[in-house]
């Protein structure tokens, strides 16, 4: 009976309202003493216009303000496309918007965290694996190219809802990512925080022999870093042993 539960760090999460994956996957990766605290924002559909509509409103800032009333050490903005939507620099723009609204609590965004994670692991030739439709996949490809990565493959499953994404099992994801990754890639990024991923990362890294980063994994890794938690974790890929 130690405590309090978040004695090491309390991490906030701003997350699209229909997402079912990020909270349990972050808890699975959380070192002892780290807790997660969520505020949801409304996303009608996982399309370019749906994400644009979500980010054009001030609801994300409202979420950050509400979360900032809790004693948090860092806040995650758990949206991949919502933080790469406008191309290079947009991840930072979103981060600064939310950090200001959260009274200075450090914020990370999924796309910004992914860039840092890929760079830390030395990835240069990227396989971009997503559940998105063609238009969002193309925007994602362009974002990583603009940030200096050679995107050797970019694929999407054409999905538009979290319910569809929640139907993708870890085994399905593993098969999909393996099929989608060409031999010249030296790293994989599994986009979208609505897609299960963290339970498949170790297996995929063994299968492919290259680092595998996922949206949820990278965001939580970066949030732990912002909160000053440096606990290596086994079972969630090279990134957590780095």
């Amino acid at each position: 009976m130690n405590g309090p539960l978040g004695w090491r760090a309390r991490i906030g999460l701003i997350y699209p309202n229909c997402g079912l994956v990020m909270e349990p996957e972050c808890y699975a990766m959380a070192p002892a003493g780290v807790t997660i605290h969520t505020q949801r924002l409304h996303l009608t559909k996982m399309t370019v216009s749906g994400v644009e509509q979500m980010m054009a409103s001030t609801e994300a800032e409202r979420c950050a303000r509400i979360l900032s009333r809790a004693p948090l050490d860092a806040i995650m903005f758990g949206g991949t496309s919502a933080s790469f939507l406008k191309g290079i620099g947009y991840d930072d723009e979103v981060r600064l918007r939310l950090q200001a609204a959260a009274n200075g609590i450090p914020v990370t965004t999924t796309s910004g965290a992914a860039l840092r994670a890929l760079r830390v692991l030395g990835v240069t030739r990227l396989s971009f694996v997503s559940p998105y439709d063609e238009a969002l996949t193309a925007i994602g490809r362009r974002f990583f190219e603009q940030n200096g990565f050679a995107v050797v493959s970019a694929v999407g499953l054409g999905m538009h809802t979290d319910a569809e994404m929640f139907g993708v099992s870890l085994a399905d994801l593993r098969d999909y990512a393996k099929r989608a990754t060409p031999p010249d890639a030296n790293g994989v990024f599994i986009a979208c925080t609505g897609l299960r991923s963290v339970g498949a990362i170790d297996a995929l890294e063994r299968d492919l022999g290259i680092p595998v980063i996922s949206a949820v994994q990278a965001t939580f890794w970066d949030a732990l870093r912002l909160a000053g938690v440096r606990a290596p974790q086994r079972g969630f890929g090279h990134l957590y042993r780095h």
Partner: protein
Amino acid sequence: MDDPTGWRANIGVVCGAANIVVEPEFHAMSPPGVATCATRMASLDVERGTGTPDAEELTRCTRYLVDANLDVIVLATPAGCAGTPATWAAAHMSASGARYPITAAAAVVDALRALRVRNVLVLGTGRRDAIERESRALADTGITVAAIALLELPAGAAAAATYRAVRAAASRPAAAVYIASSAVETIMALDALEQDLAVPVLSTVQACFWAAARAAGIEDTLAGFGSLLARESAQ
């Protein structure tokens, strides 16, 4: 490949803006395949025992969780803090589309009945008038409130601090103790309190999780979080 997501059930939770207890305690009690999906009400300051879940906020929170097609949605706020009848909140959540809306007030009454308790000592945090409202809500359902007392604990207090405060406050005889707070940690202290006080000890978060899990069809044996969760599985 272990899947930590809610492949058996996803439980939606609405808590207060500053709350740091409900989500981790729900997670701690969740068996494999059960996950918590949370959101927060800006208007509700449970930590100070003030605020009212206004209709617009409750509608927004409920609809967001309804859209996620969860198995159940629970408003994890003591009735006294909410300052409104449980029926109001439940009705409002239903009108917002929740199939199985659960309020803390209803969950606690169901839990006390499941334990066949009709006489309870109510211990709350925050403001005394909130605890009095909580007690009146219980009395309205036919449960006798033996006494009420205020636990001098800050928001987010650890389970060890809650244990000591409850031990100090629970000197009056009652058939059970109810810790009416979602602002302080309780679940890790419940087993020890039940052993040492020799009566059932319930808390808001524990009762909410119990009611939500049951509504979602989850009746696993859950040891370590008080007799309510352990007992149910034995039935």
